[in-house]
């Protein structure tokens, strides 16, 4: 494939003898987004306006979530058939439509967005690809980078969350994309002709027209784009303090208010989580930890903020009573009904998926009994044979609800359960290391606090998390005293969060050993 070296050729389309020009439009979509419908609409609009149009697609993978391309060429009908190309070319696309942010980025990378030429119409919402979803931490691609590149690459950009616009109108994204195209003014066709085509398509017309109109107005600047908030909206949790606990609660609140302002937000959230998890006394225990960290800290109080965050998480470990508690709350029932959309005249059946193993069963017992159970291999085998299986519990029924209700009622005696002992031993050891490290290297101690992020999941996943945590923590001795200790600790944690098998972590640990050994 050796191409001779040559001057790059400027390949711009030439018009017809009558000055007519071909307009090229490529649409990049994720399979299943209705790219075919959009294509048909655009062709119909062009033809209704006295244009000749041709569309092509590679439909083979369209339905299966892969990236697909649709391509349209159009030209005013002068009585002769233009020779239309069958696929988009680098540097030769007038209008590029992307129905998802990363597909817009892909179009840029493929050379379909040319400065000074291409109108880029892109929806800024995200559909995470499998590779982004499977990371044990946060594997999602950086949207800001792609949005910045759009501004540079395109002649004119119309980018907003067209998925949300469509959803709000009760429609799908093809209609809002068409609205954005019409509103962009990139095609010389009047708005009514688009709407006429939607009307003629016959399905979900009213919703499609609403979505089209909303997107049209946003594209022309007549209306603002829907806000895509940095942090998604979630139902704001409500704090409920019963009468007889008010005094106790006021005491811990006083302690929070006494903290430096920088620390109060995080501690405020933390204390509510911890007290909700167990009781007010547990909250006091949490505040002890935060105050201990504060004693070794100074503005801007990064160490204390991290302590407020991670101590709350460490204290609120995920055990059976916790899960049962969450699953049986009134607020949770409301949220589920809302999420799956249950109308008033409908009934909802709700099935929970549980699979408690012998380990969890034993850990949920009081210390002495739990330890005795842990040693009984015969019992374990018996449990494995008869009880170790998935349990489907119907929480909308009384029996199912009561089963979980009883488990959740273990909360008052949680401190006496075997699991609590193990968790607290772990938390104490970790926090002791934090307090040891802080006087000499506050940044490193802050990172050590952040390592609690590695502990997550249930059963085997939880064990894997613990083992990763232990491996990352094992580097602490090697790193202490080094200038870049905190930085390395953070890198180790990131490596551990990046892949499941822990190969990246092994590599990072080997590096640490090589320079610190």
């Amino acid at each position, binding site marked *: 494939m050796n191409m*001779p070296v040559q001057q790059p050729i400027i390949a711009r389309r*030439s018009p*017809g003898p009558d000055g007519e020009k071909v307009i090229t439009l490529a649409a990049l979509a994720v399979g299943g987004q209705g790219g075919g419908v959009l294509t048909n609409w655009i062709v119909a609009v062009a033809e209704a306006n006295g244009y000749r149009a041709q569309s092509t697609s590679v439909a083979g993978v369209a339905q299966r979530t892969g990236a697909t391309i649709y391509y349209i060429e159009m030209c005013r009908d002068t009585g002769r*058939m233009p020779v239309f190309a069958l696929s*988009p070319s680098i540097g030769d696309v007038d209008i590029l439509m992307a129905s998802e942010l990363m597909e817009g980025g892909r179009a840029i990378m493929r050379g379909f967005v040319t400065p000074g030429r291409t109108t880029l119409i892109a929806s800024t919402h995200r559909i995470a690809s499998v590779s982004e979803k499977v990371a044990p931490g946060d594997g999602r691609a950086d949207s800001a980078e792609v949005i910045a590149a759009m501004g*540079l690459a395109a002649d004119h950009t119309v980018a907003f969350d067209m998925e949300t616009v469509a959803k709000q109108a009760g429609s799908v994204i093809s209609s809002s994309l068409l609205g954005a195209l019409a509103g962009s003014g990139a095609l010389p066709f009047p708005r009514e002709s688009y709407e006429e085509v939607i009307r003629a398509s016959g399905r979900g017309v009213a919703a499609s027209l609403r979505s089209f109109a909303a997107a049209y107005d946003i594209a022309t600047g007549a209306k603002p784009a829907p806000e895509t908030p940095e*942090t998604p909206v979630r139902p704001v949790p409500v704090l409920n303090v019963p009468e007889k606990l008010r005094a106790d609660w006021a005491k811990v609140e006083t302690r929070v208010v006494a903290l430096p302002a920088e620390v109060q937000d995080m501690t405020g959230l933390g204390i509510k989580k911890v007290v909700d998890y167990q009781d007010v006394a547990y909250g006091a225990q949490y505040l002890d930890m935060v105050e201990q960290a504060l004693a070794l800290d100074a503005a801007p109080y990064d160490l204390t903020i991290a302590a407020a965050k991670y101590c709350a998480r460490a204290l609120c470990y995920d055990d059976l009573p916790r899960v049962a508690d969450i699953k049986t709350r009134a607020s949770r029932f409301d949220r589920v009904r809302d999420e799956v959309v249950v109308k008033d005249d*409908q009934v909802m059946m709700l099935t929970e*998926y549980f699979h408690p193993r012998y380990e969890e069963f034993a850990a949920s017992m009081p210390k002495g009994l739990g330890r005795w159970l842990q040693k009984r291999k015969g019992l374990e085998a018996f449990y494995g044979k008869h009880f170790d299986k998935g349990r489907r519990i119907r929480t909308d029924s009384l029996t199912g609800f009561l089963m979980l209700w009883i488990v959740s009622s273990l909360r008052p005696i949680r401190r006496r359960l075997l699991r609590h002992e193990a968790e607290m031993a772990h938390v104490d050891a970790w926090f002791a290391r934090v307090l040891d490290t802080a006087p000499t290297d506050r940044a490193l101690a802050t990172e050590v606090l952040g390592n609690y992020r590695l502990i997550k999941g249930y059963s085997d996943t939880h064990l894997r998390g613990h083992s990763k945590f232990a491996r990352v923590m094992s580097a602490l001795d090697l790193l202490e005293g080094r200038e870049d200790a905190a930085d390395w600790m953070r890198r180790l944690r990131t490596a551990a969060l990046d892949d499941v098998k822990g190969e990246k972590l092994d590599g990072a640990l080997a590096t640490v050993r090589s320079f610190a050994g």
Partner: protein
Amino acid sequence: MAERSFAKEVQKLKMGEGETFTGEGILAITKALLENGVGYVGGYQGSPISHLMDVLSDAQEILGELGVHFEASASEATATAMLAASVHYPIRGAVTYKSVVGTNVASDALSNLASGGVTGGALIIVGEDYGEGSSIMQERTYAFAMKSQVWMLDPRPNLPAIVKAVGDGFELSEATNTPIMLQVGIRSCHVHGHFTAADNKRPTQTVSEALENPRRKLDRIVLPPATYLHEAEKLTKRKPAAEQFILERGINERFGAPASRVGLIIQGGTYNTVIRALNRLGLADLYGDTDVDILCLNCVYPLVDSQIVDFCDGKDAVLIVEEGHPNYIEQQIAHMLYQKGKSVKLEGKGKLPMGGEYTGQVMVDGLGAFFSEHAPGLLPVAKVATNEEPIAIPDLSGTLPARPPGFCTGCPERPIFAATKLVEEELGEHHISSDIGCHLFSIMPPFDLGATTMGYGLGPASAAAFHNEDKKGRRAISFVGDGGFWHNGLTSSVGNAVFNKSDNVIVIVDNFYSAATGGQDILSSRADNKTKQTQNSIVDACKGMGVKWIRQIDHTYDVTKVRDTLKEALSTEEEGPKVIVASSECMLNKQRRVKPQLAKAAKEGKRVIRPRFGVDEDICTGDHACMRLSGCPSLSVKDTGDPLRDDPVAAIDQTCVGCGNCGEVADAAVLCPSFYQAEIVSNPTDGEKRRATRAHKVISWLQTRRDAKRVAFA
């Protein structure tokens, strides 16, 4: 048949003289077949020609009226063998296949068909799946045309040209007693355009009439000594006749100015790309008017020596635009020119890339290089002077996630691979042979399962060499779909494994359809089909083949059961192949079938259940282990908005079809209790409503009582 109607398309097939047909290329071909009096049509579905099969399948009524027989063939070999009806009878027949895979399967029948030759026109419509977006290995069909001496048309990619090629093809076939391949590229198949229709024609003889009046000619049968006669006939009679037909009928077209000192010889299929490249180089206008001399080969095999040599006469240089490798056309032309002692400079591969699709940019670069070297005066100055500063666009390659195709939402094959993954976590990695079909997506993340794919229905066959001397040792696992199983897997894979006493494990992924090609019915489909016999058991077929150890799993979403069955298959002491038939309906087709039914029932006031899955985000810890065993498009990640948490949690969106995979995987892998299944009951029964109200009362009382005793933040 999957509940997908082609009624609209079928109406287009009824159009008469002078009406304007609007639609895709492949549908235009379908219409053209009827306009040309075809007597029978067969084929095996596969992108890009499956649409033709689907529409004809729904058009039985029109076909019946015209006396045209249509059937969906078991394989491309079957389809090609079907053209035997045109050997002795003057009946026009057409079959379709995806090439090059279909051509490979068909090649035995193709050789036999080509040897004896045909009386009625025989057309093989080849959907060439080559280039960007192709799902198969990149090879050319051209070699098959050459070796079997069948003629190959490659029309310009617009509807009128493609439709004309169908008529030309039948006539060329009859004039030369040779089957014809009509090659259409993947983009031509899906190109949307118009052409002026003609009336449909009844075949001159129907297949029924032929049956009533049987004929045979000994010299058309592929047996010595007739085979020697056939070979001689191909060279001395059929090929010269084809050349004559091509010249007399003007099959190949000449564009541009004949006096030009440079010329292009191009495949018809590349015409539009070539013209666009010339246009962008300032050498053609948008209607294709150009001063560059072009010979457009709408018939790429055979080449007519005299036509080529005449074209090259008086030229300094000629560029052959021939997509794909090897460059058969260029080699033939080089040979002709050399033999005739011509000195014209021949260019082709080198100026253009050896392999890969000739996309717009490739063509601009190639033609630009050719003109720069051989006719620099032709190129406008503005095209070669670069005075533009390119704008630096940031490199996003490190940011953009790949988006390969994967299993659909709710796909019943996903739990099979989740179970396989769990087995591997427990027992270690195994050698896994994959097969063609949707299930091949197991190769991709998050499953990353499967080492080879050797051909349709050949998954288990490609594990044949893996014979473990240690009876207790590791076994190979192979997958084959229900489509591949009936295509040839029953004999090539299962029968072969039985006969050779293989100990390996074969998983037959049965989704009730030929799902990857659009949901066509096959032998084991569960639906009733008016024109086909369905509901033939895969298990019975395997037993009939001699399989002793066989398990049927009728609900693949039961991950635990699939996992345990697979483990049993890998460890049982029973000899012979271990076959697991894992059956659940393709979700895409199921939704198409069930959704309208449910909506209708709900409207009529009947009790209807809609399942949905969800995640309790307070319980999800954001480890994403569930996604490493799923990859369902409706299961994704989202931010919690809680400053106490760093990692996004799992979330299930509105597109969830409630298949159950999430919960089953969480259970089988003992992942976490975050998942719940909500079943929303429309039009509940009175008893149901009463029970719900009563339970709600008690539950609310308990909840209020608890909340009175603790600080809650929820």
